[in-house]
């Protein structure tokens, strides 16, 4: 293990393991002296689900995964790759891209250096969600380290695998509350031979209907993303096939269709990332209910940007300008409308006391039981899932 970084200003000890074994050692070493552990990758999701303030320093040490990188096993012919969890997704894409393959997953944070482990722990997603889901659907094996130093594997290196429980799913969306994700095995897909995007200008209220027609016409877009007032439709496949499918969109939707601009996909990413001062929310709805739910949010007077994975009902909304109270109103309305299906990706524009999460899912009792079993001594403070895991604030 490389030398520990010197303690930060707040007295936080940062641990920099380079292997799963070193993660285990770090946790064992700190069990008595620094029991409460936070996990952090490259910090691209620092803003995600940040709890309402004021926030005490709730951890004694941080396991930073920035040195926990590298490819463990990659056989291009098998189309699977095992990597250490601190490896940035962008690096993985570059490596497999050299062999004509990719991870079919495109979250906006990837460009900022987000790590595979961090992306899994936050259950992030991008426009590829439409056809491929998110990382949860692409991880076929995982190695995690629990608070007591237990190193546990589930899954393996093959796509088809039902032996044992799938711990990767459990850790997906766990925000570092169950343990440290140390290694991940990914399923890969071939890079498409050709790709093309067209744009259909739409009123947001019609986005779902229009998207439905494209899907119903059997054109199988790989992404169907509303970007403010344009529906971006991407096709992957053979050059002739892609061209013909792109041409077929106009007839399917009975509207004029434009070529997409290079900047269109960048705009989608920018909406998700936001800028300092912004509030960014991600909401989940029944796909057909998306337009109505979004339209009912009290966003009047705010500068908004919206990107929706239309047929999945996942919407990313960026709020800018206006007062913190106005932002808080939107958040409150979102919680009222979609309950637990609202993640705060950035809270700069919200007042400090705005809650990061709405009402918990119905299964929250199970969630707490799982937390209790995986982390009985509370080494991983509930932190960003505290409102659900630890509403009374018993175990910080």
């Amino acid at each position, binding site marked *: 293990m490389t030398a520990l970084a010197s303690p930060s200003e707040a007295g936080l000890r940062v641990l920099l393991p380079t292997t799963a074994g070193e993660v285990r050692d770090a946790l064992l070493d700190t069990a008595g002296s620094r029991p409460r552990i936070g996990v952090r990758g490259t910090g691209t999701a620092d803003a995600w689900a940040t709890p309402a303030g004021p926030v005490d320093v709730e951890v004694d040490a941080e396991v930073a995964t920035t040195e926990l990188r590298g490819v463990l096993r990659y056989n291009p012919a098998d189309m699977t790759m095992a990597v250490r969890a601190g490896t940035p997704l962008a690096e993985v894409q570059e490596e497999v891209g050299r062999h004509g393959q990719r991870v079919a997953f495109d979250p906006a944070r990837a460009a900022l250096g987000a790590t595979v482990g961090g992306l899994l722990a936050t259950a992030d997603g991008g426009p590829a969600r439409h056809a491929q889901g998110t990382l949860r659907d692409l991880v076929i094996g995982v190695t995690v380290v629990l608070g007591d130093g237990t190193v546990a594997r589930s899954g393996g290196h093959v796509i088809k695998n039902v032996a044992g*429980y799938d711990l990767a799913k459990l850790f997906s969306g766990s925000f570092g509350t169950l343990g440290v994700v140390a290694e991940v095995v990914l399923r890969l897909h071939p890079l498409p031979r050709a790709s093309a995007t067209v744009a259909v200008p739409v009123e947001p209220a019609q986005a779902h209907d229009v998207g439905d027609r494209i899907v119903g016409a*059997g054109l199988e877009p790989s992404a169907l993303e509303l970007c403010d007032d344009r529906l971006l439709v991407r096709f992957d496949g053979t050059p002739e096939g892609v061209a013909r499918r792109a041409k077929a969109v106009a007839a399917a939707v009975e509207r004029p269709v434009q070529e997409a601009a290079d900047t269109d996909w960048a705009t989608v990413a920018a909406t998700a990332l936001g800028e300092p001062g912004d509030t960014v929310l991600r909401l989940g709805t029944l796909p057909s209910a998306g337009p109505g739910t979004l339209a009912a949010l009290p966003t009047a007077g705010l500068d908004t940007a919206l990107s929706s994975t239309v047929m999945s009902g996942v919407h990313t909304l960026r709020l800018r300008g206006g007062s913190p109270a106005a932002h808080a109103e939107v958040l409150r309305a979102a919680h009222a409308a979609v309950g637990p299906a609202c993640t705060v990706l950035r809270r700069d524009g919200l007042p400090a006391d705005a809650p990061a999460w709405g009402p918990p899912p119905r299964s929250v009792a199970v969630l707490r039981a799982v937390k209790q079993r995986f982390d009985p001594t509370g080494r991983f403070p509930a932190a960003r899932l505290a409102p659900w895991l630890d509403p009374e604030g018993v175990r910080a």
Partner: protein
Amino acid sequence: MLSQLRSALVDAVGVDGVLDEPSALRSYECDGLTGYRVTPAYVVLPRTAAAVAAAVTACARHGVPFVARGAGTGLSGGALPVADGVVISLQRLRRIVEIDPVNRRAVVEPGVTNLDITKAVAPHGLYFAPDPSSQQVCTIGGNVAENSGGAHCLKYGFTVHHVHSVDVVLPDGTPTTLGGESELAEGPDLLGAFIGSEGTLGVVTSVTVKLLPRPAAVQTLVADFDSVEAAGATVTAIIGAGIVPAAVEMMDTLAIEAVEAAVEAGYTKGVAAALIVELDGPAEEVATQLAEVETLCRDHGTTAVTRTADPAERARIWKGRKAAFAAVGRISPNYFVQDGVVPRTRLTEALTRIGELADEAGLRVANVFHAGDGNLHPLVLYNEAAGEHDRAEHLSSSIAELCVDLGGSLSGEHGIGTDKACSMTRQYGQDDLDTMKRLRAAYDPAGVCNPGKLFPTPRLCGERPGPYHPHPLESAGLIERM
């Protein structure tokens, strides 16, 4: 004590929902894996989710273990009863509750068969993608428990990719819902971890499934080869060319012999290997891909290629493939079917090694498998009456463990259940298994929900992992190392 349980069960599901006659109880003593049989104390058949919850509560209150059962077609003994325990059959929860074509989802009860979902939504041009070979009889509840795949999972994934949410009765009788109304994650993916948990974490009472529109074009191709190696090389080439077929299946000589005896699907008898490749998607893409696939087949020496888009012909091809397991009953009095997975690049090696193991054991093995993802289904043929049972069982688990040794998995689809529990230590370390058990403990601290499945108990599996016969006390959940 048992009579108190009985009256609690009668209260829960009504008197016509409780079976306790010896002939009835014996009828439920095994599922599709007949090598293991245990007689339960009661079988209950609730008609509603509330009745399921009441039945589970009754069991929990009396500390009696229970096992949920769908159509009983599982191949790993996942529905094997616990001695003196209760079997909860979900076969009377069979309604299609709601179809939402606009959002492409449907809400169904767990006893609905996989194929019936597709039939029900077909008028809307939709279907349910996971298609296990037993889909005309297996239930969606069972599919959720096993994370079932099927021939088309190469492109379309497994049950876990096609379920939005499930209503579950937890092992203490509390109902809950896993998964949300939307596709956005709501904290840790409990639903994803539940799917494939083999009935050990609770009983499903409702499933909200994801539906897909039927692809615009489908083409199916069957190519004969002189050797399994050539067929396997072809598959590697197809995947390497960046094509993702909807399905790639292979059958060897013995399997084809059985299939043709059963259904006359039109496969070439005597050929070393038959490759089935199905491509689907937009018409433009399918046409191009089909031509490429055919070229690759010829490049690798195919001796005959037929291709068809005709629904009736396609149905015949698939009927043959899907009937393969049961059809083997025509060329052998008994058989075990295995479900190991190997990395696709080691497929040929695995088949060669299986052939060697079979020769050593003096038994025949027919091979049917999902060539696209390396999931093998070796069918170990034997004659019980000739005393070949133990030899066959040993060969069967050797094959499963071979797959692990080649970097794969014990099970791609059928689950661990009873059959492969003892082999789990070959694939996972003790820490791995102990960590998984934490999840089980979170759901089922009392250990009443399908105990004795999935995890080995070293005391009973013996030093050498082998065929697993649950000790009655262990089956009753009274002894187990958790």
